[in-house]
């Protein structure tokens, strides 16, 4: 039986006050809060078995290496990845994207085409623009409609034999739209293109089956999934793992070094130069355990109820517009009130202890599409409650009264 009261007990931060009010944390799409179990995991590592991994023969190093590799296996199992060496630890989603973009800079030729969706985060636009500048490849955009849903017929129209790469986020951070990635992957691969899915926004809500999706690359960050910041995962299909060159040189990624030539280590170490975020990786594994203990089906059911409640309640406010109204959404509501700047609303609700995000959410193309400076974004997690949504609605009403 799902008990939000019991779940909230796991998150120490939810007990604090902000500006004299109990914290209401509705900025989960930016980062999630951390359960005690994850915090304890980091403390335990530094208190009891901190050592560098994959190198030492001493006991501590063995223990740390084991724990890190167990975390890799947890990630492998969670995402249903065939081989554990296809799981590459990164510093987060942005790192994973840059690693892949860098690899393709040696593969793409002038005139090759790269497709990105119109609802990408800047981190999934800029690396590809840089890649196009380096290689002479051409960046094309899969458009979206007013509801914030990708237009698949347009996607098919711009896909061609020239398309070498397709990059789409699983879930839009600004709108909450869940993209039909299975269809997108299949259509791209039919034309011989590789696909990278940015899962930064999806993995706290959805448990993707990467073998079933048969995707080439999938990236995500631990910190949106109750794990620590500064660590993430890049799934790279074994085929690409052998083709792409290493991203950074350093320790760990080598097999043999002489001053004439270095041979690179096998996967995944080829892409993991330097000492990684060891405690972060181990705690990422704990976070995955934590989420699976609650269960993604339960989480989804609960969050969908929150989303529909929040949508209905917010729409009762006069002159309020929600952006991202497609049928498949995660628990994100991005909105504006006519004549009020989102920054003003964010400032007032913060004074009432409520954390929301305001601004362009690193998605300026989406804001340009809707001709708005930004939005107020409330993003809900499985530990939020209907009472918190009521508080948000009443705070927004108060802000509206003060600001008009």
């Amino acid at each position: 039986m799902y008990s939000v009261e019991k779940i909230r007990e796991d998150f120490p931060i939810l007990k604090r006050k902000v500006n004299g009010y109990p914290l209401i944390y509705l900025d989960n799409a930016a980062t999630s809060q951390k359960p005690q179990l994850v915090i304890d995991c980091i403390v335990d590592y530094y208190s009891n078995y901190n050592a560098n991994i994959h190198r030492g023969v001493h006991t501590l190093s063995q223990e740390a290496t084991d724990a890190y590799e167990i975390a890799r296996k947890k990630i492998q199992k969670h995402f249903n990845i065939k081989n554990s060496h296809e799981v590459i630890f990164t510093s987060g989603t942005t790192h994973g994207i840059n690693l892949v973009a860098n690899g393709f800079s040696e593969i793409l030729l002038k005139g090759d085409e790269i497709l990105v969706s119109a609802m990408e985060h800047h981190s999934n636009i800029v690396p590809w623009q840089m890649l196009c500048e380096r290689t002479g490849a051409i960046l094309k955009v899969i458009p979206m409609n007013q509801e914030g849903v990708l237009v698949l017929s347009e996607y098919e129209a711009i896909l061609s034999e020239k398309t070498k790469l397709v990059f789409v986020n699983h879930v839009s951070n600004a709108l909450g739209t869940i993209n039909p990635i299975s269809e997108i992957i299949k259509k791209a691969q039919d034309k011989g293109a590789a696909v990278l899915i940015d899962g930064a926004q999806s993995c706290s809500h959805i448990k993707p089956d990467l073998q079933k999706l048969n995707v080439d690359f999938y990236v995500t960050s631990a910190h949106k999934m109750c794990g620590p910041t500064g660590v993430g995962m890049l799934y790279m299909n074994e085929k690409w793992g052998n083709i792409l060159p290493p991203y950074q040189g350093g320790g760990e990624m080598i097999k043999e070094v002489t001053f004439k030539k270095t041979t690179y280590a096998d996967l995944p170490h080829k892409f993991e130069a330097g000492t990684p975020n060891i405690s972060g990786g181990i705690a990422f594994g704990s976070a995955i355990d934590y989420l699976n203990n609650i269960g993604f089906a339960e989480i989804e059911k609960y969050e969908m109820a929150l989303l529909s409640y929040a949508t209905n309640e917010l729409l009762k406010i006069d002159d309020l517009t929600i952006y991202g109204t497609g049928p498949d959404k995660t628990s994100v509501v991005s909105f504006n009130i006519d004549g009020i700047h989102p920054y003003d609303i964010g400032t007032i609700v913060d004074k009432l202890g409520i954390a929301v995000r305001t601004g362009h959410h690193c998605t300026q193309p989406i804001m340009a599409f809707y001709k708005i400076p930004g939005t107020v974004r409330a993003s809900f997690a499985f530990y939020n409650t209907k009472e918190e949504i009521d508080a948000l609605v009443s705070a927004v009403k108060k802000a509206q009264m003060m600001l008009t």
Partner: protein
Amino acid sequence: MKIEAIQEDLIDEFSMFDDWMQRYEYMIDLGKSLPIIDESLKTEDRLIKGCQSKVWLNAELKGNQVVFTADSDAIITKGIIAILIRVFSNQKPEDILVANTNFIDEIGLKEHLSPTRANGLVSMIKQLKLYAMAYQAQLKN
């Protein structure tokens, strides 16, 4: 009126309020009463970087005093600008340059002074002082 005297007035005015909401309501009113600057002055080069909302700041030298006018698309930001303009506009460049900004803390708006806050108050003050510095140099020549 000297800068310090205006700051004292502001501290007095804000001390009448018991809570943040009254302070913000007053600030919003100040923002609403800020004269709107001419659309032709809302140019890219008058935009202050580092703000989540747009802020345009215009400076002119009238006699030996700097006159500031400004606007923003966010009303709370406009209120902050109104306060800054009341303090710093129609003042001599050298007075603007030496003025401190402790009054912002004293009127209970300290949170807006954080450089990580995206409202750009810090950038605004920096820009006001940069204009003052430029006009001071101009007056000396």
